[in-house]
């Protein structure tokens, strides 16, 4: 436990929210905010919840137990302020989720989201552009790619350097052809499933250059590294 840090409970604002922070050398390096809400528990009751948000720790001060101390201070303060329960939103793919579990928080509800792709070509180009920006190896390849979305149109793309462009028709030489649903495509970028995993689960079919497939799979795996929130 760092001896040079101090946990500070900020004043309560007019909306009931307050900040708890860890300071090192007078600088805020780890913090969270909490504030009040009533949450219904069935038809006849509501409880006073402390909603937690804005959790973060400076990168260079992580893995020193600061967040744990900030949370402990916040919970102690909540107990004295009439809160009976604390709640927060996170995602399973965040490292923070594991930390919150260690702090005693429990998963009570998964979010549900439905989506529809409005413009497959733009979606594919943007997603692959983000990928190429993060993956120099993929960016060094010149790839002609066909994406067959189930129950939707086929998209042809060209990856060259850091540029990804949509082709108006099928190219003469095709390096890689992938078939999947919109859901799978979005989940590759959003929800932490890898291309190899999707292949094993028969969510993706492919044909073409194995080296190109491997490079794409590696780039997607790297792209999906959990966000180090804590």
């Amino acid at each position, binding site marked *: 436990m760092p001896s040079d840090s101090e946990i500070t409970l900020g004043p309560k604002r007019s909306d009931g929210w307050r900040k708890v922070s860890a300071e090192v050398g007078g600088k805020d390096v780890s913090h969270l905010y909490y504030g009040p*809400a*009533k*949450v*219904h*528990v*069935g*038809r*006849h*009751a*509501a*409880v*006073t919840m*402390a*909603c937690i*948000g*804005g959790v973060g720790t400076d990168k260079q001060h992580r893995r020193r137990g600061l967040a744990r101390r900030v949370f402990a201070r916040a*919970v102690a303060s*909540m*107990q004295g302020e*009439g*809160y*009976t*329960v*604390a*709640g*927060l*939103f*996170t*995602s*399973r*793919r965040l490292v923070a*989720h594991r930390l919150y*579990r260690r*702090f*005693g*928080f*429990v*998963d*009570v*509800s*998964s*979010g*549900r*989201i*439905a*989506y*529809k*792709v*409005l*413009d*497959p070509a*733009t*979606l594919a180009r*943007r997603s692959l552009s983000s990928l190429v920006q993060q993956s120099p190896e993929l960016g060094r390849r010149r790839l002609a790619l066909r994406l067959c979305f189930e129950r939707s149109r086929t998209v042809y793309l060209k990856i060259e350097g850091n540029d990804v462009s949509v082709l108006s028709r099928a190219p003469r030489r095709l390096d890689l052809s992938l078939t999947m649903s*919109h*859901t799978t495509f*979005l989940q590759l970028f*959003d*929800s*932490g499933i890898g291309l190899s995993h999707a292949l094993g689960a028969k969510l993706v079919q492919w044909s073409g250059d194995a080296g190109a497939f491997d490079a794409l799979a590696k780039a997607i795996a790297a792209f999906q590294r959990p966000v180090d929130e804590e």
Partner: protein
Amino acid sequence: MSPRRRDMTIRSFREGDEQVLAHLFNAYVADFLGPIRLSPRAWRAQFKRKSWRGPSLTDDSDCCRIAEVGGRVLGYALTDYQPFWREDAAVVQELCAAGESGADEVMQVLLADAEQRGLARGKSCLLLVLSPEDGRSAGAAASSGYEEHRDHELFMVLIVDLSGFLEEIAPALSARLAESLLRQWRGSVKILSGDQSSGLLCADGSVAVGPAPDEPDVTLAIRPEALPLLLLGRETIGELYVQDAVSLTAADAAEALSLLDALFPRLPLFLPRAQWW
């Protein structure tokens, strides 16, 4: 695109609409969440919450689109065209329609409208946030060609004051006991979870909360990681029992299980968007 009633029109939010929209919201969620009463002011407050990064209703009334026939509001959709977590998407945060008959069609028309507006703003996909309990929006989305996945977001909870929590829900505990077959049950229940403990005293169909009794009729020891699931009605005592997350000490274990099942039934979880942060 779903078929559309010829006389149905879609328009943007106007000042004063929050009265009828809050009423519609309350009626919509009553079926699956119970009698929630969101005031027009609270309904309006959702545009001030931290997760809503879009413009205010005054600046961009398009983010609330309203379906009506002959001036009668049938439904509405709240769409955030600037979600902070996904630049290429528009996110329908709330989709509500009045009544049973035709509600699915109204929601499909509102979704189609949001799709057109999303495309016009350069968005490549439209996302619809669904309440865990809301099957109607999910049904309308499925009919409109939407696909669903569950792993997007997670709500986590920690019980910081067990006794305080039980005191807050004591009226509900009494109501549940009074409605059960064990309404005549008299006795005490001791609840232990980690370093927290509390007591329930049941008599005359009523439940009082107090300190953990020394000689209880029923002792429930529950793992801290299971406590929020039981108290918030996400899992029943029976489900937790078979997971070995609880242990029960009572002269009549079957009766104790029935009693705890009555006091802590499975419940819908309601997190008003106005209180999301």
